[in-house]
């Protein structure tokens, strides 16, 4: 067996061993799969934020909001990320979409921490849950 062929076969084996690890970290396919469900998508975004991958998290939340546009915590996290990326105008635009939606104090605290003083969207009208 030539050295070239040996190299190829060994490379194939190493690649097969490395593939699962790569999938877990950076594989676009795995990242896309994670945002098919709300919980796994939010968890992925939070992991990316914890790893300081703010643009990665922004992309994750964008995918999530395509599928779940009404999920308030996802849009709040998206807005807070825009603030952290110094896009305050974009953040305020996203927050404007949440007028009349219920916002949990813990979620708003995250926005306030990232954005500082920013207008809070008005709460739902009385007698309206959403």
């Amino acid at each position, binding site marked *: 067996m030539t050295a070239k062929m040996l190299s190829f076969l060994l490379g194939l084996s190493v690649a097969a061993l490395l593939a699962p690890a790569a999938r877990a970290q950076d594989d676009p396919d795995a990242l896309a799969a994670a945002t098919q469900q709300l919980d796994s998508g939010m968890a992925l975004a939070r992991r990316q934020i914890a790893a300081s991958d703010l643009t990665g998290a*922004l992309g994750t939340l964008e995918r999530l909001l395509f599928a779940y546009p009404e999920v308030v915590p996802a849009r709040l996290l998206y807005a807070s990320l825009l603030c952290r990326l110094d896009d305050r105008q974009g953040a305020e635009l996203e927050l404007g979409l949440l007028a009349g939606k219920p916002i949990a104090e813990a979620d708003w605290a995250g926005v306030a921490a990232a954005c500082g003083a920013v207008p809070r969207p008005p709460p739902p009208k009385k007698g309206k849950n959403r």
Partner: protein
Amino acid sequence: MSGPIFTRLGRTAAVLAAAGMTGSPVLAQAVGVNAAVRNKVVIRGAGTNKVRPAVVRERVILNDEVRTGTASQLQILLLDRTTFTVGANAQVAVDRFVYNPAANSRSTGVSVTRGAFRFMSGRTVRRPSGPVSVRTPVATIGVRGTIFEGVVGEDAIRIASREAAVGKKVRAKKDEASLIVLRGPGPRTQGDTSPGAVDVTVGDRTVTLDGPGLALYAPRVGAPPIGPFQISAAGLQALQSLLRTTAEPGGGGKGKDGTTDALLGVAGVAAVVGGAVLLGGKKKKKEQQEQDTQQDPYRQSPN
């Protein structure tokens, strides 16, 4: 085994690992995956006339042509983790993609013939060694690690003409006009990111956008670009409405429990069409007005 064999082994492993990441045949060069699809999005295969609906997690092949319908979006995740979002009424193709993770290098080219788009540089390659550019019919945008958006065509004219820096008297061509807006990261960015910028070349002029919200408008081939100027809140909102799904009527999407799965466009379009047929005259008109308002925030102003 000698040193060179190990070197070759490493190279082979890197190439095959990349192939494993895509799970695609080697002959058709996969450049990424469809990471999210909303409503009507179709792909025309590279070098063919065969058109198919876009499906989540399907491979994106070099020179595939993406076409989106009204209120439709596609997010492509490239192998280098660059995110490219295609907005409503767009026609786009990735026509250059070279990515070598082992050498930490890449070169990416995207052509936007019409419609709205958002580009977010991938984190993997921090110092790209090759050009990363987005071309419109009138401008070439050189990307320097950043997030930016643009729109080509009639929507660009509609949005730009309402900006004070542009006005309604500028002569534009509807198949050429391009509006480019930098979103960030800005100078006060946090985390593992650096401030970004784009260099927009129109004809023999290059204009740098290096602050969030800075915009440039190129109305037609041969005309000087207008800007940079700070885009208005209404202008940014109008651009955003082409690039995102909202919770308002017509926005679609899953509810909190994720029961309404409209990720594959055909079903979503069928539902919209079916819903429109069922609506009565006045109600239909009112909802259409609401949708129009969502697409065009200028209509919200009293005048």
